[in-house]
């Protein structure tokens, strides 16, 4: 099952994608998580040490003016992913920083990184682990969604904060045109501080026809963990945010037509 997180920048996609990955792993599920942002975010949430590499560099090869993958998506994931302390297999598109002053100019390294981007885009769209979960954390904004990065099957989770700019972004996703029939668009209300916030987002998402599958409160524990660069996934499963994400996992299970397991399924 593919679950893709989208939303305005800063809405909390990476934190929620990471928490969901951890929740599913705790339930004994197999999880591959991918970060489509060129500045590491999900890595920190999961407790994976960010590196300089473009994970998939060189895994797409030039072929008659186009590109082809050097292997199947599953082979590439096996080869290039890194495992988080919690057992999540993790892939990142790459890392864009100032040491990449050769970003535009030095041909071999540019092509290497570009091939990595091409491969990542293909793998994130097509890799579907039979019986396992694939969690994709897209870059904030509409660019990647407009470019088809959500793919054609699975659940697209739009993360919305109780601010007009965040709602406006959700409006743009909904109004983007014909969504692929295999994709289902659902919402998560995030960083909700009050009943008024919850009512506001319920009204707005209702108006857009997007069902809310979880309401995540503004959680001081999450804020503190991020502030200290502590992996959010190490937080107690009892904190408000994790409990809300557990509810999201339940909804996703239903959608995947699986039985809702008890949280301690991992012990079976």
């Amino acid at each position, binding site marked *: 099952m593919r679950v893709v997180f989208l939303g*305005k*920048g*800063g*809405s909390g996609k990476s934190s929620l994608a990471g928490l969901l990955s951890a929740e599913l792993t705790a339930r004994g599920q197999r999880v591959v998580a991918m970060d489509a942002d060129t*500045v590491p975010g999900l890595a920190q949430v999961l407790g994976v040490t960010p590196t300089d590499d473009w994970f998939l560099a060189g895994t797409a090869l030039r072929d008659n003016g186009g590109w082809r993958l050097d292997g199947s998506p599953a082979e590439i994931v096996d080869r290039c992913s890194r495992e988080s302390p919690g057992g999540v297999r993790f892939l990142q598109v790459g890392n864009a920083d100032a040491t990449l002053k050769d970003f535009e100019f030095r041909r071999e390294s540019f092509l290497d990184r570009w091939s990595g981007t091409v491969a990542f885009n293909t793998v994130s769209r097509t890799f579907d682990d039979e019986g396992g979960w694939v969690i994709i954390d897209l870059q*904030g*904004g*509409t*660019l990647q*969604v*407009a*470019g*088809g990065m959500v793919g054609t099957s699975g659940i697209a989770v739009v993360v919305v904060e109780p601010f*007009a*700019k965040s*709602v*406006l*972004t959700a*409006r*743009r996703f909904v*109004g*983007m*045109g*014909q969504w692929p029939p295999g994709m289902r668009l659902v919402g998560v209300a995030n960083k909700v501080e009050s009943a008024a916030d919850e009512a506001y987002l319920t009204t707005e998402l209702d108006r857009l026809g997007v069902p809310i599958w979880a309401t995540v409160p503004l959680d001081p524990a999450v804020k503190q963990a991020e502030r200290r660069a502590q992996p959010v996934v190490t937080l107690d499963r009892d904190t408000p945010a994790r409990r809300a994400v557990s509810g999201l996992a339940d909804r996703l299970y239903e959608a995947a037509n699986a039985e809702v397991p008890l949280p301690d399924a991992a012990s079976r």
Partner: protein
Amino acid sequence: MTKIAVAGKGGSGKTTVAGVLARLWAEDGREVLSVDADENPNLGISLGLGMEGTYGLIGARETLLLDGPAVSSSMEDIVDRFAAEAGEHLRIVQVRKFDQFRPG
């Protein structure tokens, strides 16, 4: 002419900062052209145009790609064509709004 750019991680408050600066300059009597280069443009909200006003702004790039510029258009002409009034001495132009699925 002074050219200022604002950047930061998504959600850091950069658009709010850009919008408030633009309004401060305009209220001081300066002629201000605000340019929203975000592909998910929200600067209109921080300028005071509201959600509907911002949602309705057109993106220059898409329209230019579809219609093409007029033969003798200068950049000023293009800006004049696409910029919206956001107050006295204040205009906004959205460069590239990615709000439609595009194949490839």
